[in-house]
């Protein structure tokens, strides 16, 4: 999954208008972001790739880039 695909998935799940450039933005600086969005994105990644993530470990993520890498999304 490319960064662009990931940004698209996040946009579809959260409704927040995003591009790959927003991946490094801290959640605190991402208008409208909340913890429910984080769970929704992780669940969507799971069903998209047929994987199981340890979500408890990802609750402290600070940016989308953390999710993108820490989730070890297969290319």
């Amino acid at each position: 999954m490319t960064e662009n695909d990931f940004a698209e998935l996040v946009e579809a799940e959260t409704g927040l208008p995003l591009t790959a450039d927003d991946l490094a933005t801290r959640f605190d600086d991402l208008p409208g972001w909340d913890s429910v969005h984080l769970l929704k994105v992780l669940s969507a990644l799971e069903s998209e790739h047929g994987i199981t993530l340890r979500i408890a470990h990802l609750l402290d993520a600070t940016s989308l880039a953390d999710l993108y890498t820490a989730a070890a999304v297969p290319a």
Partner: protein
Amino acid sequence: MSLDRLRELSRAGGLAENYTEVAPLLAGLDDTGLRRAGMLLSKVDASVVDGPRLTVAVVGSSALQPIEAPLTAQLARHGFVPDVRLGGYGQYGMELRDPGNPLWDVEPDLTVCVLDADEVFDHLPTPWTVDDVRAALDEHVAQVESLVAGYRGDHVGALVLTTPPLPRHWAAQVVDLRGRAELGIAWRGFESRLLGLGVEHTGVFVVDLNPLVGEHGPLRDHRLAAYTSVRFTDPVLTALSREVGHIARALRGKTSKVLVLDLDNTTWGGVLVEEGPLGITTGAGPVGEAFTAVQKAAKQLASQGALLAVCSKNDEDKVREAFATNPDLTLREDDLVALVANWGAKPDNLRQIAEQLNLGVDSLVFIDDSPSERGLVAANLPGVPVIAVEAGEPALHLHRLLADGWFTTQRVTDEDRVRGERYRTERRRLEFKERADSLGDYLAQLGTEVELFAPGPGEVGRIAQITQRTNQFNLTTVRLDVAAVTGALADPGREVLGVRCADRFGDHGVVGAVFTSTEPDGARRVDNFLLSCRVLARGVEDAVLRELVLGARDAGATELRAAYRPTAKNGAVAGFYAKGGFSLVAEDGGAREFAHDLAEAPAEIPHVVVRAATTV
């Protein structure tokens, strides 16, 4: 594709301006698509959109942010411009009690209160017993009952409550089977009392979440619940949103009126012109039973006020023969109020059915297995909901038919139960009319009788329903629920009259209502005048208006005032008062004010006998 178009509009900031495009775009989306579309739509500022706004507040005992998108989409799908407001996590008690809460800055048309089980268990000691749960539930339900009563006192909008299903992880903490049964009994008792609120109060509707969870569950996503306090999955919140959308539709008088069935591979299996009237699949065998289930459900809906019609590409004589001779059909021609079987385009045929029934075409719901027929109808008649069934899988037909509550209504009245029969009588009346030598002859032979009466408690539901369902002959389109009609009846300054009508073909029942009030200067005012389209164009409306003028004069009123407020549907009655001898005294953007000086009563209407049980 339609989601792409919505994204494009959203990115360009053009959703608000192009909101009329939204409902047709949503019609083709599945639940995930609707949720995603809802995210885009919930960013639109409803106050700048031109259209029928619907404000909904959602409060509850858990975090409810994920309901915003599906609820917004469901409301937009019905043509509303939704303004969905969310209360704070667990704040519903305070929010419902406090009329000064910012949530009520705009009085919501609907408030949805979503309850959940954790709220009860979180307040118990550890360890807890079934007795503890029982005591906590008694206290909880008493609180909810008092909140509901308080809310009804402070607000005019409707209130929707949901029952909280019992999650397994609570029941499973009771190890003895007898105790687990006792927990179940206590829980169902609690849910029953909540459901009772919907029976007790007008304007309170309780959605039983159990059947929704059974169909769309699981109830919870444990990780979402643990980490974010969201205690319902998206599919359950989507299903709940769908129910709320249909409640809103019913409250705004948009309940569908006619279920239009395709025949081949929708109502029965196979193609009639190929298999013959006795060769179609229905009744016997697993596949036949699946089609019979559709027929039975259609009759079930019809018994409660939905009208059934057929629109089929078929030979009409073969269709009639099948209905008359196939012993395995549950549905018969007698169950239908209209039967159109030909090889013409279905959008034209649907228009013809609507015209024949004297209803707007958007009061129809159409079900068909052919993607091309569905596409044609969706493209040409965007106001008609289209239910898709797949020819190869009739077991799912029933569930597709019932997935949306198109016929959801606040209360089924006696009138609903006999509506189909009335329309069939109307068909006989039309045939009689076609045989009459002239319109005058026809009216003279019809023998129309009109009665004006003061509605009793048994008729209040029907009067409210007339204000909800009537679109064409509705002079000011003020929709009233049962509570509002009861209020008008109790108000000494106002009067409510019901209109009954009968003729040689039978009794039409209660077909109209007139709401009047006394103005401070001694004039009478007709606040609204409504008549079912079934009895139009035979002098009934003119006869009632004459009675109103005579009644106002007899009561010593200085004049009789009346207003016309235009809607998309009531253009035909814009000139009704002027024709009845009223003078136009003001006009503002289509809205008209009329007055009658009562000097000269309108002429008696030939061929209509009026009995006024009460005077205005």
